[in-house]
């Protein structure tokens, strides 16, 4: 396992895009962790004498509000910093939820085959035949708006990708000799599936997890933008954008900055995901 990751890192180091992605992700994790230390103000604190101030480096800006303030006088920089906590937590929860369910279902479908496989694959086809946001909207409509429900909705939409990838890999692995050997030693199904086979399905899982992160952040932000995700006064980037829409003419910075944060975060995970795929693909070909 250790060798796997050191080889992976060696391959990744050659890919400039992936390294940029890693650096940005690393920086945003630090910003998110240190939010209470580096944010100049409390993200929900209202400065009623400073409504919709432009950034301090523009005309009319006030020192102390580097990126200006929003429509009810909250410091935009602090809200963006705290927003990175929410976005990373959202991406993480979506990936963990989808990875966990997707892995179990995918391994079971691939290993047992037959009826179990058919039922699970029909379900994935079903979810995949609906546009992701639409399906998430349906789930949120049933569960009610809110950040937790939108995370659940987006995770459900992401599960089929994981199931498909794991299942395909399990189908290849389960006919290999080490599996037969494990069977001869009397290993139970559970052990064969999750201790013997699963670690050999890591490569595609890692790629999908990275791409799932960016999809998760993007979709939850989209739900926030539609008013179905995080609710005020939470400083979620998508929700901030939807609040800022009506002030686009008078206070463009309120629109520009949250979206830029979403773009950069999503882009960094896509860069990493692309790099991981390039790094792991030749290995996959060699293995099979």
């Amino acid at each position, binding site marked *: 396992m250790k060798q796997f990751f050191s080889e992976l890192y060696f391959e990744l180091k050659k890919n400039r*895009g992936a390294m940029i992605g890693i650096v940005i992700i690393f920086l945003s994790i630090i910003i998110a962790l240190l939010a209470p230390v580096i944010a100049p103000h409390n993200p929900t604190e209202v400065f009623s004498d400073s409504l919709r101030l432009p950034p301090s480096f523009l005309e009319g800006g006030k020192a102390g509000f580097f990126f200006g303030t929003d429509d009810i006088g909250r410091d935009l920089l602090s809200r963006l910093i705290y927003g990175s906590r929410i976005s990373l937590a959202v991406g993480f929860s979506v990936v963990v939820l989808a990875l966990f369910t997707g892995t179990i279902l995918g391994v079971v479908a691939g290993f047992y085959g037959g009826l179990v496989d058919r039922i699970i694959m*029909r*379900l994935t*086809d*079903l979810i995949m*035949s*609906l*546009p*992701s*946001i*639409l399906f998430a*909207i*349906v789930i*949120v*409509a*049933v569960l*009610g708006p809110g950040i937790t429900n939108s995370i659940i909705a987006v995770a459900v939409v992401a599960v089929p990708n994981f199931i498909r990838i794991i299942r395909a890999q399990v189908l290849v692995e389960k006919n290999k000799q080490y599996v037969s050997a494990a069977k001869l030693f009397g290993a139970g199904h559970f052990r064969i599936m999750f201790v013997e086979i699963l670690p050999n399905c890591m490569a595609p899982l890692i790629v999908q997890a990275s791409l799932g992160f*960016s999809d998760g952040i*993007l979709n939850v*932000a*989209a739900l926030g*933008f*539609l*008013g*179905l995700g995080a609710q005020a006064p939470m400083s979620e980037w*998508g929700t901030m*954008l939807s609040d800022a*829409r009506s002030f*686009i*003419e008078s206070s*463009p910075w309120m*629109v*520009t900055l*949250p*979206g*830029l944060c*979403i*773009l950069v975060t*999503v*882009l960094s995970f*896509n*860069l990493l995901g*692309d790099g991981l795929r390039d790094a792991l693909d030749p290995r996959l070909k060699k293995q099979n």
Partner: protein
Amino acid sequence: MKFFLKKFLDLIPTLLGISLICFFIIRLIPGDPVLNLVGERGVDPVRYAEMKHNLGLDLPIIQQFWFFVKNACMGNLGTSIVSNNSVWAEFIERFPATFELGMFSLFFATIIGIPLGIYAALKRNSFFDYFLMGTSLIGYSMPIFWWGLILILLFSVKLGLTPVSGRIELTYDIPVMTGLYLIDTLQSAVVKAEGFAPFWSAIKHLILPAIALGTIPLAVIARMTRSSMLEVLGEDYIRTARAKGMNKTRIVYIHALRNALVPIVTTLALLFGSIITGAILTETIFSWPGIGKWIVQSITSRDYPVIQGGVLIISFIIVMTNIIVDVIYYFLNPKMR
């Protein structure tokens, strides 16, 4: 023939599953469905029983589902609580707007994406190639709900070039023929009365939403074309054609492109689903009166029959498109036969 039969048989469980999901939307929402429908004002017991009966909620659940599917097959998808119109009529009224926007943005993405992808493949590892692949990854990561706002900020607010919302200047009265304004504004009656101004206005309204909606497809198409072209250009028959001393343009555009197009066409058709997703966001930003805005509004106004019927129709369209893609693929790719 066997291939098509199998495809259509595969369709049945998917469609049943989708109807099951839509069927349960109303029933899974916490609270009593009838009270959800009438809202907070409440209702007297006689009217309550009547509504329950009308909705078929007093029947066993299996029978309810059966009636739901039967009604859906006959185009009866219920009535909107907000407007009291039938869901189907509301859908038909809005669909052309989304169709026009979707087709225009796919067109925009294709005519720009394919040439860019070809050029990047021909100039592999050049500055242009890196630049294009970098930009397309940015395009692919774009939160389009933000991108739309930025386009409005640039082109409508700062430069004043394009209108912010809607499909056409409200002063024009366009008789509905196809529902597609690019066609309807060219009817002879319209042109006689107003000249080409309405057509021009429709184009101006369409351009920004189409760019916003077309950005992700554009990125996908450019990347797909590049990798597909690279793969084909490495094939033996291309080397043979080169060895024969064939004209280079002919090799690229006739021999290579024709084969590279097969996966591109499939990608294009599969982008249809993401167009619908994008339309939900784009139409909200640009107040485009299509089905995306309709669905979002129905959620905010808790108009459950519309959510139910709308999701059913949209998923049906997408499932059907996927089948059509499979058929096209079957004809394009001789290996399938």
